[in-house]
């Protein structure tokens, strides 16, 4: 950490950081993917960062989860370690280079989950004090029933920690998931004011949500670098002699 450790809100970096938050099944990843497509088509240099993405740390997290050897405290710390690696390697360098960084889940995921697991809310906020403050943090607000339908319809079985089975809310995994996620929603709602999360009504159509997201993002992009590299379509039309 040459130059010392910078704290939340104190980083001065030329890039932009947009993050999405929300419970599983809120559709946030779809929205982020669509945002990235648009940014790329507009010529912005984008970089993508997601939860549990540091290879070395991910290994420990995976093993800990598989063997169910994580306590609320080690669960919290191992995710913070993974996040620190994302920050140091995947987020700060592109932001320094002036890129647009898109992150699927950010510190607010940890704040919600860890507090529901019984970890002190002050402690976990202090723990993540090294995080870069996002340019805009979107929160995809979804009623639990809507999210449950999306999840139970399409994906594999609900996982042990995702359902909060480790804190013994219920013996039944689906019931535990419901109870756990509803507490997560309560935590997110508290954070809307605390951190100025931009709430998006995720019950609306995908297109309506994306239009709103793009509008907010484009307002925050003034002065951001665009790529000088032409897209292949331009090159293809050049090759044809088109002057368009």
């Amino acid at each position, binding site marked *: 950490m040459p130059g010392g*450790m910078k704290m939340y809100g104190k980083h001065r970096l030329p890039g932009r950081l947009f993050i999405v938050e929300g419970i599983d099944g809120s559709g946030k990843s779809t929205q982020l993917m669509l945002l990235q497509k648009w940014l790329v088509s507009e010529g912005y240099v984008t970089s993508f960062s997601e939860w549990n993405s540091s290879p070395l740390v991910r290994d420990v997290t995976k093993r800990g989860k598989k063997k169910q050897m994580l306590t609320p405290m080690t669960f919290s*710390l*191992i995710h913070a*370690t993974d996040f620190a690696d994302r920050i140091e390697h995947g987020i700060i360098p592109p932001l320094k280079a002036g890129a647009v960084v898109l992150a699927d889940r950010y510190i607010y995921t940890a704040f919600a989950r860890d507090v529901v697991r019984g970890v002190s809310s002050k*402690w976990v906020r*202090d723990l993540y004090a090294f995080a870069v403050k996002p340019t805009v943090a979107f929160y995809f607000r979804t009623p639990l029933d809507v999210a449950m339908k999306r999840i139970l319809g399409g994906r594999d079985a609900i996982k042990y920690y995702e359902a909060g089975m480790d804190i013994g809310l219920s013996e039944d995994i689906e019931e535990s998931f419901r109870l756990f996620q509803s507490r997560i929603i309560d935590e997110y709602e508290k954070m809307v004011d605390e951190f100025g999360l931009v709430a998006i009504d995720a019950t609306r159509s995908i297109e309506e949500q994306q239009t709103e997201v793009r509008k907010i993002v484009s307002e925050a992009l003034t002065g951001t670098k665009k790529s000088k590299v032409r897209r292949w379509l331009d090159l293809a039309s050049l090759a044809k002699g088109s002057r368009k």
Partner: protein
Amino acid sequence: MAGFSFFGEGLPEIDLAELKGKLIVLEGTDGVGRSTHISLLKQWLENHGHAVLDTGMTRSALAGKRLKQAKEGHTLGGITMSLFYATDFADRLENEIIPALRAGFIVLTDRYIYSLMARAIVRGADPEWLREVYGFALKPDAIFYLRLNTDDLVTRVLQSAGSFDYWESGMDLHMGEDMYDSFVHYQRWLLSEFDKMVDIYGFEIVDASGPVEEVFPELRDRVMRIVDATAIESRPVGSAG
């Protein structure tokens, strides 16, 4: 009896009143003989009928192996490394130290959060932030700081270099003299960070400059005072006098 407490915002779902044992920490830079003293103390305490758990850094079941790899690969940044160590420590605290204390063991630990904080500070981490992060740690019953002054430290470092630390640190890839300078410089820096913690955390300083035969009896006597206190407390009421 004072009992245990956390430094800051503690671990969830731990009943501190259940912890009956004693937590004794040995701290100090490299080359002060911590592990020698730990093994002597363990033998001595066990001979006197106490159950002892000895434990050290980066050995947790959860992260120990990967942490060692990370250190060798130098791929992780300073904040990431600090938090990886904190994870490893939390795993040992919850799965080794606390269960042993609950069972009435005397826990001897070779280094504790102080070494972890000193190393992280030297690598640029914010001291205030580290204090908050390690708020979940238990306050020990005693912290013995085996201390060497800079000259003695350098002598010990010179003695031990060329063997374990030299190769383990991958410093053999560099020019010998630069490697030495860097190693000595690093140890001095750590020493100054430890010295700053003496008052903040209530370290008991043990002069480690003499031979083991001289240092150990002093350390043993100090440990005895803490352990005897346990023995008196555990006697039935009325039988103490």
